[in-house]
């Protein structure tokens, strides 16, 4: 049972105050009509579902009702941090680009 820090209420709270909202940063295609059935199906249903670090959304259901992002390890339930959606986007993009760098 987790303790999750709400970046808006700026306090660590019990899991029961929150709702899990699924994988973060699944972007809706800008022009859905231009997508193939396959691409659209991927957007609708396919999930990263990683064993390890996972960027995911939670909403602070019983308090500020804001949706925010948590980086959680699905293999051991440790939490690296939580961010507002906009902060998280930056942190996530940086992580992605860093990963690219190391690959290259």
């Amino acid at each position: 049972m987790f303790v999750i820090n709400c970046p808006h209420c700026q306090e660590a709270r019990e899991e029961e105050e929150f709702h899990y909202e699924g994988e973060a940063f699944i972007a809706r295609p800008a022009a859905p009509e231009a997508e193939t059935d396959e691409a659209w199906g991927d957007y609708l249903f396919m999930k990263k579902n990683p064993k390890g670090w996972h960027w995911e959304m939670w909403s602070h259901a019983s308090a500020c009702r804001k949706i925010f992002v948590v980086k959680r390890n699905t293999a051991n339930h440790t939490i690296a941090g939580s961010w507002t959606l906009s902060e998280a986007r930056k942190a996530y993009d940086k992580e992605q680009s860093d990963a690219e760098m190391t690959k290259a």
Partner: protein
Amino acid sequence: MSNLELNLSQFSPVMQSPLYHFGLAAKQEPMNEGKGVWANEIALLSYICLRGDSNNAAFTKAAKKILGETLPTLPCSLIGTPWGNIYWFSPDEWLIVCPREKRAELQHALQAVLVGVHSQVVDNSGGYTSIILQGKHADNVLQHCTVYNLHSLTENKVVGTTFGKSSVFLHRRNDGQNSAYVLIFRRSFADYIWRYLERAATPYGFGISTL
């Protein structure tokens, strides 16, 4: 929702608070040492929801003009104003609790001053009510009802949290000696919340206090 005594032929009062059916008014007594927990409904206040971007100067200025105070931007904080308390609910949401008499004036004043500003003013007076909880075992009783860490509920702080399987906004009010808790929650959950509270309080001795 049983234990209900309403004579419909001479139907009154015109307004009914969400806990009206428990007939608390008739049960209330002055607090004494005999019971560990005391509660009552603070009935029929007005609740105005105010939404807006606290980083938007146009919004905050306008709001201050009416409220006389700058909207609290510190998370989970509350301030008192001539209108009544203003509770921080989220970075773009506040609840203003004022007496019924002031509702229309406040609502209209805010709406007027916020014309053209990205914001929302909503009267939710029928949708909320408040319970006050005091007595030497008030903390104990709340520990049965909510997962929130009451140690960190300092004065001038309001938190949204769980209450049984529903949720409430909770803050601590200073009544001189005995500090009291105030729970703000939605009308339709009132029956459940009161029953849950009563169940939790029973082992400590539960009384309805005069307000």
